């Protein structure tokens, strides 16, 4: 009963914030609604006993996504006149279709089989050889490592795609637009004070993911923020997109992952299999490379395609 007292307002708040996002008259209001929705969703994840997902939702789903939406909205939203909405018939049809889908989905969720199928027991039975204490990390790095490998490749291709949006003449320059430096403003102050603390916290979150909630994606996203902050404050210029070190940092995660995976053919049972006794060491190696790659790739995705002059 006390649980319902907490869950019901959370669920109502989540739906309400989502509705407010759609109903907002201004683009800026919609972005604020989306940020609120993401933050409430973070709390819902905690209530669903998923602290790892809650961290990811907070850092990537709510924070990083909102930052890039707000950034693009501030660049085009204010200047453009709001477009005319689609014809009323289309909106009514869309409303009927969406409501129908929501009702069907709710019906499906309420008629799920009891008891629910679960892979929790097999995961726990096979966690010992990985040397990990966090079952979610064990799934990501061992039981479903192929998903994580493919996902790390997605990040690299996303950066490729974003960079290739740059006009021809700007290829090879630093990612993102040129930000004006304000040497003594509050943003410069934050960009000087926060990164030393934030880098420690980002590395800690990535490191602790082996045994507790956290991991490479959450920690890597924090590191990305700490890298982007001085760019936005104009304190340091990002490296050129032709810089081999930047490219290597972005590709390191999938490369190391793939090499360890291929090594499995020679020294273990097959692709992505770890040799007995070395699982934890290899997983840590992959996680380190992945943390670096997630940080570099996310920083480049937040900054966007090259728009400014490279460092003289």
């Amino acid at each position: 009963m006390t649980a319902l007292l907490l869950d019901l307002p959370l669920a109502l708040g989540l739906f309400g914030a989502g509705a407010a996002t759609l109903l907002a008259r201004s683009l800026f209001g919609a972005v604020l609604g989306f940020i609120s929705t993401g933050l409430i969703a973070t709390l819902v994840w905690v209530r669903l006993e998923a602290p790892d997902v809650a961290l990811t939702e907070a850092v990537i789903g709510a924070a990083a996504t909102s930052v890039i939406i707000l950034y693009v909205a501030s660049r085009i939203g204010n200047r453009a006149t709001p477009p005319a909405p689609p014809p009323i018939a289309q909106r009514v049809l869309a409303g009927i279709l969406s409501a129908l889908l929501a009702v069907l989905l709710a019906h499906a969720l309420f008629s799920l089989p009891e008891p629910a199928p679960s892979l929790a027991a097999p995961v726990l039975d096979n966690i010992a050889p990985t040397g990990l204490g966090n079952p979610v990390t064990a799934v990501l790095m061992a039981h479903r490592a192929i998903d994580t490998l493919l996902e790390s490749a997605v990040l690299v291709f996303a950066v490729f795609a974003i960079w290739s949006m740059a006009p021809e003449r700007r290829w090879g320059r630093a990612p993102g637009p040129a930000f004006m430096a304000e040497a003594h403003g509050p943003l410069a102050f934050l960009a000087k004070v926060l990164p030393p603390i934030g880098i420690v916290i980002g590395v800690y979150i990535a490191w602790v993911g082996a045994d507790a909630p956290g991991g490479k994606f959450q920690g890597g996203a924090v590191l990305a923020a700490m890298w982007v902050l001085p760019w936005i404050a104009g304190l340091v210029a990002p490296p050129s997109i032709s810089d081999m070190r930047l490219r290597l940092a972005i590709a390191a995660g999938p490369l190391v992952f793939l090499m360890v995976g291929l090594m499995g053919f020679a020294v273990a049972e097959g692709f992505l299999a770890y040799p007995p006794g070395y699982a934890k060491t290899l997983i840590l190696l992959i996680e380190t490379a992945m943390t670096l790659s997630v940080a570099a790739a996310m920083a480049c995705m937040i900054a966007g395609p090259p728009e400014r002059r490279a460092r003289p």
Partner: protein
Amino acid sequence: MSMLISLFSAACVLAGVFFFIAGTLGLLRFGDTLSRVHALTKADNLGLGLIALGLLPLVDGIADALKLVVIWALVFLGGTTAAQLVALAVRREQDPPP
């Protein structure tokens, strides 16, 4: 003793929640941006500080306590900077630099 600690924690957290609600009310009800920023940052920083203070006696070890303090300090830093930036943006909008 533990009774006293629970009472202290409950009082701090409740006071913190009160300040959060007050700050949110200010955000929703105040007319201009500067007062809204003022209400939000002042009240929320106090509210979060009180909640962190109330939770401190309940954590298991010194490491967890330290994490709580760091979280409070970071939100303090972030909130203060954001408030300054919003205020600067408001000033720039009111009288744009030549």
